[in-house]
Every structure is written in C-alpha cells, then in structure tokens.
C-alpha cells in the first residue's frame, strides 16, 4: 500500500506539493496526470525517500520514506521514464544484478529468463548486450526486475514515454499482471490512453494539489482529456 498523509514539499518559497492525501491500496493502479510542474515527480521522489517532505508523510507499506528510506525502498519497485541499464551486460545479467541488489537473492539464469519472458522479452534477446536494446526492451527488463522484486508497491514515472503503441500496450499488460498479484501501483503519466487502460482511479494534479480524482471506469476519454487540459490551461494562465 502507498499512502500520502498531508504530504507537502516546498523548495524555498515555491510549493511543489501541497498537502497531498492519497491512498493506493493493494491491487489498485492509481494514475497521476497533470501538466509539467504539477508535483507528480515530486510525489514519486517523496515516496522513494529521495527528498525530504516539508510536512506530512509518505508511507510505503506502512514504512515512512523520510524516516527509514532504505526500508521503505526495499518494499517497492520503481520504473522510471527510461530504464537505464548497463550496456555491456545482457538483459539477463542486468536483471540478475538489479534483482539481487533489491532482495539479496541469487537467481538462476533459468529463473531470470522466465521473469524476462513474463515481461515480454524472449530468451534470445535476453542474452544479448543491452547496448543494442530499444527503449521498449529496456522497459521490459525494468518490468522483469519489478516482477522479481516481489514487492507490495510499484512506482512508475512516465514509463511508456517514447514507446510505440504496441510496446505501450504490452507494458500495460505487465502492469495489470502486477496489480492482479496485489501490488499497489502509483503511475505518473501524460498518456491518457494508458491511464484509462491501466488505472482504477485517476488523479489530476495542478499546482502541487490533487485537484480531481476520477473513477477510471466511469470517465470517458473525452471527459478525461477535458479535465486534463483544463488543469494544464490553468497552469499556463
């Protein structure tokens, strides 16, 4: 579970996040939409414990990210906009490395290949150096690492940015797989299609505040787009 309690972040006089209250229970995908500078990435950074809140708490499976960031991080997986890997290592070697750092387990090559296959990367490609991977293939390795971690929460920061529609669709399938295992997923994105495809709830952020929360199944694409554009225009004005 992911929980923000009156979570606030100031950078000097600028209010990046304003008393965010949000709960993502196990088995739910919550999408955060909003224009640039709305506070989405700040929210992710606060859950990761990469930055200290000015007020409030960011809890990962009950662990305060500010007070015990290492323990909080050990309970979540994170996939950034671009999964960066070590180019001279294969996808499998990258997976085994990151997953071992995450949970300390030695996985066999067979287990690693199975995880990569589950994320949509076939065995032949998994054994090739990552230097030749497309962005979609690297994101799949990121998904496989998240699968391997077996954690209670997943943070996604614009994970399909730059992916072609097919790769984005495959990615959405993987996220659904994690959700169905009971993982609480918080996804930051600009992709309205992906938000409706993956999420149970969608929140729109504006000037550091969670302006609107919608049920993803009860809002149509047009309604979501209008709400998103309205938030963006207000910021632009």
């Amino acid at each position, binding site marked *: 579970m992911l929980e923000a309690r009156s979570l606030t972040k100031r950078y000097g006089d600028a209010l990046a996040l304003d008393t965010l209250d949000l709960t993502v229970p196990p*088995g739910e995908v919550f999408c955060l939409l909003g224009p640039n500078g709305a506070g989405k990435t700040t929210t992710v950074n606060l859950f990761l414990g*990469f930055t200290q809140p000015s007020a409030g708490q960011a809890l990962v*499976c009950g662990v305060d990210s500010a007070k015990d*960031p*290492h323990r909080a991080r050990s309970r979540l997986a*994170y996939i950034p906009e671009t999964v960066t890997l070590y180019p001279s*290592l294969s996808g499998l070697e990258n997976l085994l490395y990151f997953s*071992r750092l995450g949970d*300390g387990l030695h996985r066999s090559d067979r287990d690693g290949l199975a995880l990569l296959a589950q994320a949509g990367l076939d065995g032949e490609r998994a054994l090739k150096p990552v230097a030749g991977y497309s962005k979609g293939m690297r994101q799949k390795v990121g998904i496989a690492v998240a699968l391997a971690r077996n954690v209670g929460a997943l943070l996604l920061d614009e994970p399909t940015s730059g992916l072609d529609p097919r790769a984005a669709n495959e990615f959405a399938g993987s996220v659904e797989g994690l959700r169905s*295992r009971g993982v609480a997923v918080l996804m930051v994105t600009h992709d309205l299609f992906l938000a409706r495809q993956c999420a149970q709830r969608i929140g729109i952020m504006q000037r550091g505040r969670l302006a609107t929360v919608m049920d993803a199944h009860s809002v149509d694409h047009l309604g979501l787009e209008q709400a998103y554009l309205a938030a963006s225009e207000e910021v632009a004005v």
Partner: protein
Amino acid sequence: MSAVIDSLAARPPSQGGAVRAIANKEWLELRRHPRGRLLAWLISTLLLVSLLGGVLHHERAHQERDAAQQGDHEMWNSQGAKDPHGAAHFGQWAFKPPSLLGLADPGVDAYSGGAVWMEAHKRNDAQFRSARDSGVAARLGGLSLAFVLQVVLPLVIIVLGFDAVSGERERGTLRQLMAHGLPATTLVAGKALAMLRALAYLLVPLLLAMVVAAAVMAEPAERGDAVLRALTWVTAHGIYLAGFVALTMCLSSAAPSSRAALVLLLGLWLAATFFAPRLATEVSHAAVPLPSAQQFKRQIADGRAKGFGHDETHPGYLAFRDEVLKQYGVQRVEDLPVNMRGLALKRDDEIGYALYDDLFGKLNHQFDEQDRFRAWPGIAFPLLALQPVSMALAGTDRHHHAHFADAAEAHRRVIQTATSEDLIRNQKYGDTSYRANQDLWKSVPAFDYHPPSAAWALRQAALPLALTLLWATFCGGAAALAARRLRVVG
C-alpha cells in the same frame, strides 16, 4: 495477499552480499570494456618490463660490484713490501653492494655513488654516481617498478574510476539502484572493492615475483630480510593505491559531474606527483639550509688544521710528543720503546675521527630535518610520504647510503689503526728503511658490508609510513562521508 507480499519484501539484502554483487558486476564490465582490457595489458606489460629490467640491472651491478671488491682486496693483499703508512695512503675501495629491492626502487643510488675510497687522513665522499655519467635522458627517470606503482597506477585508477559514481548519476542508474533500497555507502564500497580486486590481480603476482626474486637472488643469510622487505614494500604500495581508490570514489561521489571529478582528480594527481615533491624539496632546503660542498670542505680543512698530520713542528704535535715522553718517562723520542711517528699518526687520525663524526653527524642531522620537512606534507600529497618508505624498504634511501658510508669509514679506521700500530710496534726511531710485508696487508680484513635489517629500515621510515597510512585512512573516511551525503535529488 498484500500482507504476504509485504512480508516477502520486508527482508532487505545483506550489505556484504550487495557489495560483492556490485563488485562482481563492476569487474565483469571492466573485463568487457576495451578501456579496461587495454589498461590491464598496458600495466601488466609495464610491470613486467620494469621488473625484468630491475632484475637484469641488479644482477649486472651485483656481479660488477663483487668483481671490483674482490679485485681491490687482491690488489691490497698483493702490495709488495712498503712503508705501512704508504699503504694507508694507497688505501682500499669500499664498493656498495646493490640492494636487492633496488630492482624495484633505485632510490638515490644513482646520485649518491656506489664506492668510497678509504685512504689515510680523509673521509671521502662516495664516487661513481651513475646519474652523473648518464645522458640527459636519465634525468627523465627510468622505468622502475616504483615509478609504475607510484605514478602510473594512480593515474590508471583515476581513469578507470572517475565516473564510477558520477557516471551512475549521469546515466540514471544511480536513481534506480538507490530505489532498490541500496545505501549509497554500499554502492561506493562495491565499486571500491572492484577496483581493489583489479589492483590485487596486478599486485599479488608482483608480490609473488618479488618474493621469489628475493628468495632466489638474496644471500642465504639475508633471504628472510629480503622477503620481509618485499612483503612490506608491496603492502605499503597497496595502502597507497587503496588510498587513491578511496580518493577517486570520494570525488566521483562528491563532484557535480564526471568531468568535474576527472578534472579534480587529475589536478590532485599532478599536484601530488609533480608539483608537491618539487615544492616540498625547495621548502625543506630553504627551511634547513645545508652547507655548500665548498663550505663543508672548508669546515673539514679548518678542523684538520687543529691536527698535525705529518708536521712535526705543529704545536699539537709538540704537545703530544711531550705527553708521550712523560708517559714513558724518557727525555728523547729516540729513547721511546715505541715508534713516535706511528703514535703521532694514530693520534692525528683520532683527532680526525672526532672531527668527521661531528661534522658528518651534524650534516646527517640536517638531512634528517629536511626529510621531516619534506615528509609532513605527505599527509595531503601521499607520494611525499610513500617515496621515503619505498626507498627505505628498497634499501636505496639516504639512510642506507649513510649506513654504508659509515661502514666504509669504520673500515677505513681499521686500516689506519692497523698500519699505524704496525709502525708503533715495529719501526725503530730514524729507520726510514722499515717496510711491512704481506702479513700486515692480509691481517686487515676485507671490507665486508652487511646492509641493515628491514626493521631498521622501517624505523627510519616510521613517520612517512604513518603519514601514508593516515592519508589512506583519511581518504577512506572521506569516501564514506561523500557516499553518505550522496543524493539522487538535489
């Protein structure tokens, strides 16, 4: 379901396991990277060439020295019948045996000279300074093991490691790694372990080669000491290089970018390797000025003027003669039961010994002061601290040279005493035809120099060794601090 997942994730990885995993990954990348492979070959070749060059040079120097020392002794023994004091003026040569670990660090040997002419009345400087006989190229420095380990390897560490942490930040992998709950200290420790492992792959074979060389090439009686010196020499360099690994990790973690880390590290390397040693030398010379060679010779000449040499009109001689006559209860020199000339030569030598002990003692004390001045900045510029340690363990520093020079002086005194006492015992008053024979020459033992022990060498280098350790520890602490302060988001 969620409770099960939460419990599964509650176990963070062990730090030791994570450090090893990072080190293994780094090692794998290093092996696959052309930069790593190229540097490995380059350094291995440099070490091998410098080690072989050192061994060949040592063997040649050893043979030349043994032949020269033996030839000189035979020449001494084969002198015909002659006046004993004439033989004292004929003198002997003391040839310095090349230090076994001089193959690793030639130190000051090329500048301090390898042979001392031991003659009557004079304590001579060492001669045959190979640097003086070499061309301009010799001034650029030879390719010694010490040069590779002290100058080249730190540069290699910098080139391999400057972006170890900053590169992770710039590529975005740092964010992912830390998002896994990995403490930054673990990441930096893993990176450092990988570099230390790479160093170990170079240093352990080198250590084995040096130990084998020490065991095979050293005299049986000095074998244990040579092995101990080799072990300590490599260990001291290991500490120095580990300090550079820590420094590289520190700046790679603390610098805002890889480029900044590289510039800072190269600046420090240049300062530590080229600027600081020269500056420290100049400052030490200014702080503790030495007499010029001319001034020192003048001091000796002034002191010697208080003695009487062969001058039987010198007031000192006359006073000594009266003292001897009184001691033996006679009125005339010709009534003495011993030879006055021999007694006077012996007394004059003894006056000279005290003078030399005083002047050379003061000079050595000034050198010690200069060394201390030069060593202290080693806390910040480690080459200043390591070099004296390296030369001391290699047996090629000023202390070892002074030890040899003192041994040569002691042997010179044995020759003087033997020849003067022969005169005292055997020459009759006014008998200018007295000649000693080979029995006297052979009664003078051959110059048999034994270099000091490794423990003695370590005592001479205690301060710089402590400074090297302190610097490396400081770098380790700074790296740990920089790792703790590492932030993904500013």
